[in-house]
């Protein structure tokens, strides 16, 4: 049997002309190994994020099942136009991010920086819209807590044309359950917004480094892996939007 410690460099030194990128970490044998490890790590991290949001989704599904009328009424308080705008903005930001990854791979520094900036701007627009939505909730006393106001659910305003209430009025005990909806709304969109803020900060840092040319010399891993993260945040919103905004919205209702 062989002695365990044997040199192995020679076997692959020929096929792989050692383009030793400065970012090549010494503990990886090859840059390929480093790249694969990085991507694998990011996917694993996203798996943990799925479990993280999963707890909230589970709570949401449970309570939506129990208190369906309250959830319907509360969901109707959310602005579909604003939600749709945000969805479009976020999908566009994902598109820009994907373009950014392409730009890094084809080593076009200017384009990469442009796309990163566009991604950041889209993210900021999203957060701006969310700020307005939250502010509206604050003004209408729909933030759970002592100042929560159920009157709009018990006595919905009347449609001026038909004279009928625009919403099915809820009995007082069911109206109280709208607080649970809003608690989950703020927890889920708030957690999502927090992830977006972290993403935007990281985008700022990556843009600076991209400007210095760090990602257009063959080393694209940070852009790729950040892209994965950004797309994940996007996908979470794609789930949140229908679950929170679109309960029971039939055409013509």
């Amino acid at each position, binding site marked *: 049997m062989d002695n365990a410690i044997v040199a192995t460099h020679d076997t692959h030194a020929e096929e792989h002309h050692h383009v030793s990128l400065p970012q090549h970490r010494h503990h990886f044998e090859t840059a390929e190994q480093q790249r694969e490890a990085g991507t694998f790590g990011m996917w694993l991290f996203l798996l943990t994020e799925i479990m993280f949001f999963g707890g909230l989704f589970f709570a949401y599904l449970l309570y939506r099942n129990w208190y369906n009328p309250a959830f319907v009424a509360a969901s109707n308080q959310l602005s579909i136009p604003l939600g749709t705008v945000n969805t479009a903005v976020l999908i566009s930001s994902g598109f820009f991010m994907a373009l950014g990854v392409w730009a890094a791979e084809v080593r076009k520094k200017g384009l990469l920086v442009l796309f990163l900036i566009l991604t950041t701007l889209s993210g900021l627009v999203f957060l701006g819209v969310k700020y307005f939505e939250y502010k509206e909730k604050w003004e209408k006393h729909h933030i759970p807590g002592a100042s929560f106001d159920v009157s709009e659910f018990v006595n919905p305003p009347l449609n001026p044309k038909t004279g009928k209430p625009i919403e099915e009025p809820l009995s*007082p005990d*069911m109206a109280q359950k709208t607080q649970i909806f809003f608690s989950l709304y703020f927890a889920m969109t708030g957690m999502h917004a927090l992830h977006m803020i972290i993403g935007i900060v990281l985008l700022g840092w990556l843009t600076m480094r991209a400007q210095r040319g760090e990602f257009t010399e063959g080393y694209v891993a940070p852009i790729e892996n950040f892209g994965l993260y950004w797309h994940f945040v996007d996908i979470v919103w794609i789930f949140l939007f229908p679950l929170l905004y679109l309960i029971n919205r039939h055409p013509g209702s």
Partner: protein
Amino acid sequence: MHISPVLWQFLVKWLNASALFPREASTIAPYTDALYFFLLLITVVGLALVGALVFGFSVRYRKERNPVATQVEGSTLLEATWTIIPLALFLICFVWGALLYFRIYNPPANSLNIYVVGKQWMWKSEHPGGQHEINNLHVPSGRPVQLTMISQDVFHSFSIPDFRVKREVIPGRYSTVWFEATTPGTYHIFCTQYCGTKHSGMIGEVTVLTPDDYKKWTDESTSGMSLAQNGERLFASMGCNACHSGNAAARGPNLANVYGSKLKLANGSEVLVNEAYLRDAILNPSQHLTAGYAPIMPTYQGQISEEGLIDLVEFIKSLKTNYRVQQTLTTSESNQTTPDTPADTPGVVKP
């Protein structure tokens, strides 16, 4: 249990006398103890087996005695053996435990029902005849007793170790446990779910009396009104009788004999009306809409204490006719005997 009763008694009593084993004071206790001894047996045998193997191998194959090890890959037969046998034993424990669980969980039909309200940091028990106790529970021996319990604040847990029963006491819904005490005496009640500062002070005593003594006790300690009578008062003063008057055109369903019946709800489902349903219907009426009625019942969340709810539930349980309900429609403002206002139009009462 097919062990000699003499041996069994000896074992249990001796252990109990040495403060190493609790008393067996309920009908279920011997069943629990039987499972316990079985589990102990498995543990001792398992430990002895592992110990014998380890000790035996240590002696036989110690370096001085066996200087050269023989490399062994494994043995599928052995793997199968020590997979299947433990699995079989554990499954026996599962089945036995499940059977015992269902025995403990399902009260007999003729149980005496006592309400227990737990709050930080005391137990309040309420007998149907209106006897109230704090941190104490008097029960008759030889008769199944069901405890219907709820918490006013946080999770508690009601435990009587000598009866081998325990159940969580939860805020917001009833939980039940039952037992049949066998021997007169006093036994510990513990709160076993950590509930704050005086968790270890939330203890009490179950006093088991012979049926005669129990009757004497209930006669002596009644505070005047039974739970149902209190409930009747509340039913009127809270204005329930306005809608639930029992008239054909009443706005609320007739509550006479509703307890124990299968009620058809507005969403098409059928539900068995028990204590939990009644309590929930008072607090969350919109989710408990009887078929054929409009969802106009206000919620009483925050307006009635758990004791009040218990009183109302007991009242509705006892309601056979609506005679007194209609009687009290005009006398509901006070609990003194009314002067001579005749009973006339319903709806006079404030909701």
